[in-house]
């Protein structure tokens, strides 16, 4: 069998990555530590005409560095050179081969990117946990251009139908579990054990509700702990409900609940931060008790929720409020966990992008709420998705 040699120097991170990659693929290799200006180094330079490391050779034929290695493995060429044609066939991610673009996320940003990419005749694959994303959490949208009032499900249907008119391969209901984004070919692994390859990627994974992170929260989801007041508020007829949070979502939840519940507690860590018009409305509601500067420490229950423990930030006094349910409305977290160690993110975990949706990593773009775009709105996300797709297209045509 042909032998693979890798030239490395100490402390070189891509050398470490290349060796780990080879080990992971079960490829035997001979490592040649080539400290600069040593004989081995000179030999490497002569063979490869390159002074950068790592350098990979098979039987003396130079193949390049780490990203070339990833590309050659993904396309099966590496396996062919090693004389392992069976593995060459397996390596190319099945019939789909290599996409021009993979879009991760099926909200407005992802769907918009899909349309723009398809119209540029980019071979595109869209992976979504759910089509619609955060948009589906509210019932109505009144500020999407062209629609004076539309229910979100209707708007998402229109977006989805639009994408379906184009040749965009889509898979819904699956999650991406890991990504390899450095290198010319990006590798996406999904939770159903499939691997997809692409020359470029757009991350449009949006945001998710921030959990409180207190005991009882996970155990009682669906049985008193809720994140969607649009869905569940109507169920609280003749019951007591608590809302944790002080912003607009919390105030709107309290307003929804006040219509049906016998009592509503509003618990906020800080003074209420929502729009003054909503704050005023809630303060004027007799059925709503407001607790500001209280930390929520525990959710209590038996079969379902029965109470919530709160602690005053000012004097540390504990209190237990009787409640049949707790709505958690304390903001959102960006779904950037997949890339938090690979891409630049800001203080709150949003992927930082420039005005062309570039992330700083070649061939990797991001759009919508998962990024540091200043305004998180459906129409902004749709615009960002379009930009990201156009940027991906420009990137690809400059590759050829």
């Amino acid at each position, binding site marked *: 069998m042909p032998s693979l040699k890798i030239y490395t120097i100490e402390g070189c991170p891509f050398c470490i990555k290349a060796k780990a990659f080879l080990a992971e693929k079960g490829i035997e290799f001979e490592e040649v530590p080539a400290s600069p200006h040593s004989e081995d180094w000179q030999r490497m330079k002569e063979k490869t005409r390159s002074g950068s490391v790592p350098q990979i050779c098979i039987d003396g034929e130079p193949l390049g560095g780490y990203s070339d290695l990833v590309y050659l493995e993904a396309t099966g060429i590496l396996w062919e050179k090693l004389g392992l044609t069976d593995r060459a066939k397996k390596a190319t991610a099945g019939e789909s081969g290599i996409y021009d673009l993979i879009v991760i996320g099926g909200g407005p940003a992802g769907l918009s990117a899909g349309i723009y990419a398809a119209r540029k005749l980019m071979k595109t694959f869209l992976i979504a946990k*759910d089509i*619609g994303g955060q948009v*589906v*959490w*509210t*019932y109505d949208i009144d500020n999407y251009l062209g629609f004076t009032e539309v*229910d*979100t*499900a209707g708007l998402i249907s229109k977006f989805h139908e639009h994408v379906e008119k184009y040749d965009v391969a889509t898979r*819904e*209901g*699956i999650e991406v579990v890991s990504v390899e984004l450095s290198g010319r070919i990006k590798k996406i692994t999904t939770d159903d054990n499939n691997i997809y390859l692409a020359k470029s990627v757009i991350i449009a994974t949006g945001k998710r509700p921030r959990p409180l992170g207190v005991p009882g929260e996970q155990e009682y*989801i*669906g*049985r*008193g702990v*809720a994140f*969607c007041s*649009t*869905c*569940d*508020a*109507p*169920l*609280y*007829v003749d*019951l007591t409900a608590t809302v944790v949070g002080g912003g607009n979502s919390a105030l709107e939840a309290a307003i929804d609940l006040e219509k049906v519940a016998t009592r509503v507690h509003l618990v906020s860590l800080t003074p209420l931060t929502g729009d003054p018009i909503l704050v005023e409305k809630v303060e004027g509601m007799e059925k709503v008790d407001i607790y500001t500067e209280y930390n929520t420490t525990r959710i209590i229950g038996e*079969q*379902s*929720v029965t109470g919530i423990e709160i602690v005053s930030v000012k004097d540390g006094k504990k209190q237990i409020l009787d409640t*049949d*349910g707790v709505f958690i409305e304390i903001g959102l977290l960006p779904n950037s966990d997949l890339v938090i160690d690979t891409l630049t993110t800001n203080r709150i975990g949003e992927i930082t992008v420039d005005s062309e949706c570039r992330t700083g990593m070649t061939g990797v773009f991001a759009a919508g709420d998962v990024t540091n775009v200043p305004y998180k709105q459906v129409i902004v996300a749709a615009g960002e998705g379009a930009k990201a797709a156009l940027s991906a297209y420009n990137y690809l045509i400059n590759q050829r």
Partner: protein
Amino acid sequence: MTEAKVVVYSTPTCPFCKKAKEFLTKKEIDFIDHDVTKDRDALEEMRKLTQGGLSVPVLHICDEIIIGFDQARIEKVLADCLSS
């Protein structure tokens, strides 16, 4: 339409309930939908089935109870249910 014992408990303002019902319709699964804001008996039934649940949608498929639109789980339970 395929025969499957599927009951949905929903509220009219709940977008996930709408998604769940659209999903079932697309798959050509017959289902009964109870609007628990109007049908108090259905609300009590739902709470009993979910051991005190207060979130919708609730899907009762064969013997399984699913709270929320968990597409992957719903697909699996439907597949198991239809094959039995």
